[in-house]
C-alpha cells in the first residue's frame, strides 16, 4: 500500500480552535498564579495528599495515552506491517507532544521546577521515580529524533527563514539534509530504543505506588502492578490511535482511514484481553473481590474502571460489525482510553488513603484549569503541526474542500 502524508494547509482558526485558545489562556493564568503564590495557592495538595490531579492525569495518564507511539512503531517498523504506516506519523506526533506536556506538567507540579535537571547528576538506584525520569528523558529525545525526518521532508530544498535570518538559509539547508541522510541509516537504533524505553517506564510507573503498601487500596495494590501498567499501556495504544485519528479526521474533514483502523483493533482484542485476564486473575488470586461491593467511592471507581473501561469495550470489539462501523468503533475505543485514564487516576489518587489522617482530596479549580489548559494547548499544537507538516495521509472527504 502506498501512502503519502501531506501538510493539510486547511484554515487554522475555527470556533473549536478559538475555544481551545481560551482554555489555554485560562490554564496559562493558573500557571502564572502557581509561580507567584506557590503550589498551595492554586491546589488542594497537602502533607497527607502530596500527589493529585497533575500527577494522576498530566503525568501518569499522559504517559499511558502516548503509548500509541511505541505500539505503532513496533507494528509497522519492527514487525514490518507497512500496511499500518499511515497511522505511525500521527501516533508519533501524539507521543512527542504527549511526553512534552508530561514534562511541562511536571515543571508545574514539582516544587523546585528549576532543579528538574538534578536527577541527571544525583542518582538513586533504589528510586523507581529515578528510573522513570531517566527513561522519560531519553524517550522524549528519541521521539524528537524520530520526528526530524518529517520536518526535513517538508523543508529540505525550500528553507526560507524570515527577515535577517535568511542569511542562515544555506546552513539550515545543509544541516537538514545531513541530519536526514545520517538518520535514515541509523533510525532503527532509535526505533528499537523507543520501544525498549517505553516498556521500561510504562511498567515502572506502576511500580511507583508499590512503595506505599499501607496507603493504596487492596483492589489496586498488587505486586504485578508494573505488569498491569505495561499491558494496559500496550492495550490502549491502538484504541488511542483510533480515538485521535477519528477526532482529527472528523474535525479536519478527512477520510476516516477505517481500512487501517478496523484491522488494527482486531489486535486490541488480544492485547486488551490479556490485560483484562491479568487484572481479573490477580483479583481472584489475591481474593480482593470481597471488596467489590462495599459501595465506597473507591470500590465504585474500580467497578466503573473495569466494567465500562475494560469489559464492555472488549465485548464490543469482539463484534466484527462494531469494528467496521466508524462510530461504534470510536465509542469502544473512547471507552478503553477512558478506562486506562481512570485506572491511572485511581491508582495515583482515588486508591490513596493516608492511614494516619485519612485526609481527603479533590482537585482545586486552579489544578483543573492547568490540566485542561495543557490538554488544549497540546491539541492546538497538534492541529498546527498537521496543517503545516506531512503527518496525516488521509485524503480529504468527498464533497469538502
Amino acid at each position, binding site marked *: 500500500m502506498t501512502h503519502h502524508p501531506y501538510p493539510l494547509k486547511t484554515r487554522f482558526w475555527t470556533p473549536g480552535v478559538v475555544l481551545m485558545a481560551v482554555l489555554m489562556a485560562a490554564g496559562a493564568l493558573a500557571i502564572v498564579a502557581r509561580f507567584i503564590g506557590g503550589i498551595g495557592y492554586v491546589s488542594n495538595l497537602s502533607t497527607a495528599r*502530596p500527589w493529585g490531579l497533575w500527577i494522576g492525569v498530566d503525568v501518569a495518564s499522559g504517559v499511558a495515552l502516548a503509548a500509541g507511539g511505541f505500539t505503532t512503531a513496533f507494528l509497522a517498523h519492527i514487525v514490518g506491517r507497512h500496511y499500518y504506516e499511515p497511522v505511525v506519523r500521527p501516533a508519533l506526533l501524539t507521543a512527542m507532544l504527549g511526553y512534552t506536556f508530561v514534562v511541562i506538567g511536571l515543571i508545574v507540579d*514539582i516544587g523546585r521546577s528549576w532543579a528538574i535537571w538534578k536527577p541527571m547528576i*544525583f542518582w538513586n538506584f*533504589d*528510586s523507581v521515580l*529515578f528510573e522513570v525520569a531517566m527513561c522519560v528523558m531519553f524517550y522524549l529525545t528519541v521521539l524528537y529524533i524520530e520526528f526530524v525526518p518529517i520536518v526535513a521532508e517538508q523543508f529540505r530544498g525550500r528553507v526560507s527563514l524570515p527577515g535577517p535570518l535568511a542569511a542562515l538559509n544555506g546552513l539550515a539547508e545543509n544541516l537538514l539534509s545531513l541530519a536526514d541522510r545520517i538518520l535514515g541509516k541509523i533510525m*532503527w537504533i532509535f526505533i528499537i530504543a523507543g520501544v525498549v524505553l517505553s516498556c521500561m517506564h510504562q511498567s515502572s510507573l506502576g511500580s511507583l505506588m508499590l512503595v506505599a503498601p499501607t496507603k493504596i487500596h487492596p483492589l489496586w495494590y498488587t505486586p504485578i502492578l508494573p505488569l498491569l501498567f505495561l499491558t494496559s499501556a500496550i492495550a490502549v495504544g491502538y484504541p488511542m490511535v483510533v480515538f485521535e485519528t477519528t477526532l482529527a479526521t472528523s474535525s479536519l474533514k478527512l477520510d476516516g482511514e477505517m481500512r487501517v483502523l478496523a484491522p488494527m483493533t482486531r489486535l486490541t482484542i488480544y492485547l486488551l484481553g490479556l490485560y483484562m485476564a491479568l487484572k481479573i486473575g490477580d483479583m481472584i488470586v489475591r481474593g480482593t473481590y470481597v471488596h467489590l461491593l462495599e459501595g465506597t467511592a473507591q470500590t465504585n471507581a474500580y467497578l466503573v474502571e473495569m466494567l465500562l473501561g475494560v469489559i464492555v469495550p472488549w465485548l464490543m470489539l469482539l463484534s466484527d460489525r462494531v469494528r467496521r462501523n466508524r462510530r461504534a468503533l470510536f465509542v469502544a475505543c473512547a471507552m478503553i482510553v477512558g478506562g486506562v485514564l481512570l485506572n491511572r487516576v485511581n491508582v495515583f489518587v482515588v486508591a490513596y488513603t493516608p492511614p494516619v489522617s485519612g485526609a481527603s482530596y479533590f482537585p482545586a479549580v486552579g489544578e483543573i484549569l492547568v490540566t485542561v489548559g495543557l490538554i488544549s494547548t497540546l491539541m492546538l499544537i497538534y492541529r498546527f503541526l498537521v496543517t503545516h507538516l506531512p503527518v496525516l495521509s488521509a485524503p480529504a472527504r468527498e464533497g469538502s474542500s
Partner: protein
Amino acid sequence: MKLTRRGFFKIAGATGAAAAGIRPKAARASAEPEDPYGCLVDITRCIGCRKCEDACNRVNGLPPPERSFEDPTVLNRLRRPDEKAYTVVNRYFAGQLDAANQLVPTFVKIQCMHCQEPACASACIVGALTKKENGMVHYDVTKCIGCRYCMVACPFEIPAYEYHDPITPRVMKCTFCFERITKEGKLPGCAEICPTEVITFGRRKTLLEVARKRIQENPARYIDRIYGEKEVGGTSWMYITGVPFEKLGFIDVPDKPTPKLAETIQHSLFAYLWSPIVLYGLLGGIMWTSRRNRPCPEDEEGDRQ
C-alpha cells in the same frame, strides 16, 4: 533505514558495554545502619507541657507559632507536624479514670520516626534523603527537586511541604537535630529540655534494653510492647506506654520495611540493565528478520533513486 547484521551487533555490543559500567551501588540509600542513635519516648511520663515543641522551634529556627507554646487550649484539637512545626504533642483520653473519677489524659509527642530502612530515602529520586550511620534520616535541600515522592512513601505521613513558597519550597521534617548531635555533641533540643525525662537519647540497642527493663520492672505501668522495635523494620524513635497504642493514634504498620517490594522488583528487573538489553536484542532480531522478508517500500524507493 537499513539494518545490517554487522551494524546491529556492533551497536548492541556498545550498548552492553556501556550498561556494564552502570552497576547497582553497593551502599543503598536506605541501608540500615548498625549502631544508630535513637530516642525512647516514655509516654507514661509525659505531662503535656509542650516545652519540646518550644525547644524544637527555637533550635531549628522555625517561624513563631500562631498560638503560644504556653497556651494549653492548643491541645483541644489533634494536630499533625507541618511545615512550621517538626514535632507536636497531642492529648488523648483513652478511658482511664483517676481517683476523682476524672478522665486521665495521655500525651503523645509525634515527629519523624527516623526509620531504620526509610521509605522516603528509598523513594527519593535524587537521594536527597539518606539514612546516616548515626541513625538520622537527613534531608539535603541542595539536591531536592520537590517531587514529593518522599511524602507519598512515608508510612507515618511525616514530611510536610512549604506549599506556599513558589520557587524554593523545602520538605520539612524533624532533623533529629543533626547539627547539634554530630557537630556540637549536644542532645536533641526536645530531649534536652524535657522536664520529666520522657525522651531518652542514646544508642538504639541500649534504648531497647532500657525499654525492656522498664516494662519488666513495672508490668502494671506498661504494656508489653515497644512501638518502633519492629515496625516497618524498626525505627530510631521508639515509644512505650501504659495505654494501648491504637488508642493513642499509632497506626498498625507491617514489620517489613515498606519500600522492600518496590526495591526488590526494581533491582531484579534492572540490575546491570539486563532486561532492556535482552529486549533490545530481541526486538533487533525481529526487526532484522522482518526487514529481510518484507522490505520496506520506502527503502526500495530510496534504492531506485
